[in-house]
């Protein structure tokens, strides 16, 4: 990091010894950013904001929470009733998880649409996927903590999956539980891990951003930056744009927190955990539903587990499955259709995952699970045979002239 010059003597003194101000200057002020990013590029920083909110509210919740099977449920209610603004902390944390996933899902689909996973951003993409997997683990263990009926039974169902692993499966489940069923030791370790993992995510996000600033941002045209005329400094352009995005996100998120705080919650989780009573309908949180649907669509337990994890792991290979050199779906007519179909398949799988696995739902689940996995070979085929539209000369060319090749003004970029 080459040292910058600062007018303030104290800052200069510190920066000569620890170049944090140079780093900030370098990566949050001068950082050259494509001038044509649309609002879908806001969701990375929005996810970062959610992560900070989750850590802050989580730490304060942990001060009043008790990870004991006899006390956990009531300790959460104590937070809701007796801790000053405890209800606000808890509702922010609970709904924050949902909005974190909303941001990250949009962020991932943005990357899919604009081909951000392709060279040279493969490692950036992998780090994103590892973040996503870690988030899922964190959210799963967090859901266990209030020790309601679904906390308990959801944990039981999902941890039981590991018993499908041949030979060592039962040992692994016992080891995960710390006993022979989901019980106090399980709750204790889940709390410890739920506290730890967000900091792991934080470190991963740091690496994610280092990788981003090495390869630089992709953009809606998917073409490389050709020179300074294609970029603008991060500050003030993208700082203000991110701030505006933060304002909008906070309005929606806090609107739910204050006025529909239990929108994402199954009422059954307000019944304390009871190992003697199985709830009629065990569903995970909405952000797991597509994978839950895939899991249940495979008649074999081990097969289901493999399919479920495979549904995510396959994304690691995306940079090589997709052979096309063109990044943005804007110039890939067939890929664009494929993308939207895949998106729809994910939404429908989510719906199927929320329904009891009976009748048509079973058949539909199988059809759509196959459709999910069909995306990848179809993408491979498409990328070999598709004829992309002509790419613009440079980012600056269409942006400065106000019109891109064959495309009218894009609504996302008007504001």
């Amino acid at each position, binding site marked *: 990091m080459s040292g910058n010059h600062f007018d303030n003597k104290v800052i200069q003194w510190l920066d000569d010894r620890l170049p944090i101000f140079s780093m900030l200057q370098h990566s949050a002020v001068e950082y050259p950013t494509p001038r044509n990013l649309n609002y879908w590029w806001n969701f990375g920083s929005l996810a970062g904001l959610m992560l900070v909110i989750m850590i802050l509210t989580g730490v304060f919740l942990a001060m009043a929470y008790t990870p004991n099977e006899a006390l956990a449920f009531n300790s959460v209610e104590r937070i809701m009733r007796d801790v000053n603004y405890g209800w606000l902390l808890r509702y922010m944390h609970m709904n924050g998880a949902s909005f974190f996933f909303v941001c990250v899902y949009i962020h991932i689909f943005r990357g899919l649409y604009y081909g951000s996973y392709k060279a040279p951003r493969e490692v950036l993409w992998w780090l994103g996927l590892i973040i996503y997997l870690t988030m899922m683990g964190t959210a799963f263990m967090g859901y266990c903590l209030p020790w309601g009926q679904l906390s308990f039974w959801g944990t039981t169902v999902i941890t039981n999956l590991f018993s499908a692993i041949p030979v060592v499966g039962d040992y692994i489940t016992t080891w995960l539980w710390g006993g022979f069923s989901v019980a106090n030791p399980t709750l204790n370790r889940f709390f410890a891990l739920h506290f730890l993992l967000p900091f792991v995510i934080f470190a991963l996000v740091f690496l994610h951003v280092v990788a981003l600033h090495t390869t630089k941002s992709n953009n809606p045209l998917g073409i490389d930056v050709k020179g300074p005329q294609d970029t*603008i400094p991060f500050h003030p352009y993208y700082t*203000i744009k991110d701030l*505006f995005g933060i304002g909008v996100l*906070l*309005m929606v998120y806090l609107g739910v927190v204050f*006025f529909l705080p239990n929108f994402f919650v199954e*009422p059954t989780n307000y*019944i304390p955990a009871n190992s003697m009573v199985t709830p009629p309908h065990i569903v995970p949180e909405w952000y797991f539903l597509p994978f839950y649907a895939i899991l249940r669509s495979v008649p074999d337990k081990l097969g289901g587990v493999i399919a479920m994890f495979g549904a995510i792991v396959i994304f690691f290979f995306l940079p090589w499955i997709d052979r096309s050199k063109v990044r943005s779906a804007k110039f890939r007519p067939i890929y664009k259709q494929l993308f939207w179909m895949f998106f729809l398949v994910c939404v429908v799988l989510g719906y199927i995952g929320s329904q009891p696995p009976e009748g048509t739902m079973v058949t539909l689940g199988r059809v759509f699970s196959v459709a999910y996995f069909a995306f990848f070979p179809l993408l491979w085929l498409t990328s070999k045979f598709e004829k992309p539209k002509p790419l613009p000369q440079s980012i600056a060319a269409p942006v400065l002239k106000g019109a891109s090749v064959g495309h009218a003004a894009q609504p996302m970029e008007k504001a």
Partner: protein
Amino acid sequence: MRKYLIPAFAAAVIAAATPAVAAEKAEVAHQNWSFQGVFGHYDKAQLRRGFQVFREICSNCHSMKLVAYRNLAALGFTEDQIKAIAAEKQVTDGPNDQGDMFQRPARPADHIVPPFPNDQAARVANNGALPPDLSLMTKAREGGPDYVYAILNGFVDPPAGFKVNDGMYYNEAFPGHQIAMPPPISDDAVTYADGTKATKEQIAKDASAFLNWAAEPELDTRHSLGLKVLGFLLVLTAMFYALKRKIWANVH
């Protein structure tokens, strides 16, 4: 041709998924509540009536362990009234200096004293059924206060041919329609301290509102703080947007 691919695909998906949606269970009728909506807040007079219903009827069978007597201040009861309400019940305390447990009247800091010492005792007194704790009832059931209202008003004659088991009662709102709770309310089952006419519907309404308060005592604060926060964010975001337009003016 390709243009129609996605719409056609979407239509097929929706068509395939509809029959499954139609097979849902009967909806619970929606009631008007003073606390619904962005500007909603509790009607304290109604909550006090609801508490009266709970105290005189429901609390003979149901506990409400998460609510303390001191919380009743939110319904407009004075400190002395709360002390008097609490003192009606006895709680076990101790050990004292002699090492003995002893009985004393409940204090405002105590949680509402349950009618039975444990679940087993509650079952014995209720034909084997356990009256659930009511602290979170409206949050723990689909439909919330609408559902509680529907249960309380749902005791009707069973349709011809429906066999109601011994010790069970027909209830149109309860899943499976057989509930172990005897119809708890009827017209004039309570005499309201504020003179309101105690029809069965009125009692059910007041009791449901009270249970909603028990489950979400923070609702009033939540709504009023929420309005302020959203108002602030609206102004802030509008300013960010204006600033964004200004800063970006020379880029577009």
